[in-house]
């Protein structure tokens, strides 16, 4: 294995090469006429459309406005998922009976892709906020629950034994032993949850929304405005990346504080 890491310079050089190749290929495909311009606009066109949409509205709102309403639904859904999933997971990790009851239900529902809830969401909430929130919840809930559960369940047995030896009761065991021990797992779960929630949001908005970035993209697709569609994708990608980076930083900070990382 080339196990010696590259120097900063080398990394930059190769990365630059990769980006250039990618953009070059893209541009090449368009300008050569291999792919019709309306299907694959050149990178510059997408970039300028992106900038344009920052201030001029499309499908009812500007890009930041669409992003804003998307993000709000997203936040509700994810926070709800965490607020229910984490405590439930911890309790399931400690009380075997609860685990035995909830797990079959969860296992049954787990395989239904969150997106499959869309028809019911549409039926129950129309294009109201409840629909997307419900679908985001469906997507964001499993990692919260599972990671909290695993974090609590698979705590190093010695620590549980030590706590029992010290006469620790149930409440204290959950709050002061299981919860802190599970934090790395929970945070990792939140990161996955945030990611899945964001993805489910897009899916939901493609179908049942009257505002938001997904809605914007569907409208653009309908009128073959490819640059706008791609702008939407880039915007979603950027926000998704920011969310992920922030959560990663949080996770790393936590690990440092706990001494799990130098």
């Amino acid at each position, binding site marked *: 294995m080339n196990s010696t890491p590259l120097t900063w310079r080398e990394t930059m050089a190769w990365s630059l090469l990769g980006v250039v190749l990618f953009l070059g290929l893209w541009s090449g495909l368009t300008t050569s006429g291999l792919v019709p311009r309306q299907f694959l606009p050149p990178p510059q066109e997408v970039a300028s459309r992106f900038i344009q949409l920052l201030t001029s509205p499309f499908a009812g709102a500007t890009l930041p406005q669409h992003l804003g309403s998307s993000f709000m639904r997203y936040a509700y859904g994810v926070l709800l998922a965490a607020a229910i999933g984490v405590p439930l997971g911890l309790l399931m990790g400690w009380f075997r009976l609860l685990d035995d009851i909830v797990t079959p239900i969860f296992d049954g529902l787990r395989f*239904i892709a969150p997106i499959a809830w869309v028809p019911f969401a549409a039926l129950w909430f129309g294009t109201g906020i409840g629909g997307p929130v419900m679908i985001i919840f469906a997507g964001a809930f499993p990692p919260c629950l599972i990671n909290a559960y695993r974090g609590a369940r698979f705590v190093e047995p010695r620590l549980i034994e030590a706590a029992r030896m010290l006469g620790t009761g149930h409440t204290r065991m959950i709050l002061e032993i299981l919860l802190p021990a599970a934090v790395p797992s929970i945070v990792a779960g939140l990161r996955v949850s945030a990611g899945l929630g964001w993805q489910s949001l897009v899916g939901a908005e493609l179908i049942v929304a009257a505002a938001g970035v997904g809605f914007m993209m569907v409208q653009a697709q309908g009128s073959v405005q490819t640059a706008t569609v791609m702008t939407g994708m880039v915007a979603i990608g950027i926000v998704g990346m920011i969310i992920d980076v922030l959560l990663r930083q949080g996770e790393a900070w936590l690990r440092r504080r706990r001494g799990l990382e130098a």
Partner: protein
Amino acid sequence: MIGRRGWIGLGTVAALIALWFLLTTVTGIVSGARFPSPAEFWLSLRQIWGRGYAGGQLMSHALHSLKLVAMGFAVAIATGIPLGLWMGWNRKAEAAINPVFLVIRPIPPLAWIPLAILWLGLGDSAKILVIWFSAFVPSVINTFAGVRNIDRPMIEAARMLGTPRWRMVREVIAPAASPLIFTGLRLSLQASWTTLVAAELVGALVGVGFVLNMAQQDLYPGMILVGMVTVGLLGWATTALLGMVERRALSWNMAARD
């Protein structure tokens, strides 16, 4: 054979079904317009199974969806795993490809749907393209992580033993990375189903997602539930299949698992 855990599980399921019956048929707290009663569910199931709905029988819709998932998944792992291995092994490749990946990765797979429809229409190829996009990323990432997480001493031992490159990949790197690769596969499969259903909801002419879409437009809760259950079952079956493959492939690792 059925341990305590199994009995409690069965009991819970039975209790839920009873609750379902109670809320819908018996008391009518939940109206039929919002959620189907057990009877309505059954009727819808019989209809789509026999006479068909939305242009076909349940079996043909399900098999069509299954076919698309299988194809998309296969292409995704056939491209994703090698790329992940390469990026894991070769730092230059990693440096070159990473930025592109960094940009593509946060774009939710479902966000590719409008573009795919624009490019390829409402047919099968668009679906496979989107499935490929969404299933590709987890495979690459996890394969990459799998390679990077291999114990240095193991690689060094293999080199000391004079292992040539191709054998190194096949007999050392791939097996050592396989636990994480399988994690990636599971995520890829999940992503495949999600994307397929979403793509079929947005624009399709056949498939379980299409059934769901039609049922929603017809305001037919019973059929919606049938669609969801079908999605769940298909997801479960394919995941179980993958699990079996995983268990065989990772039998050496089982002792280390939970």
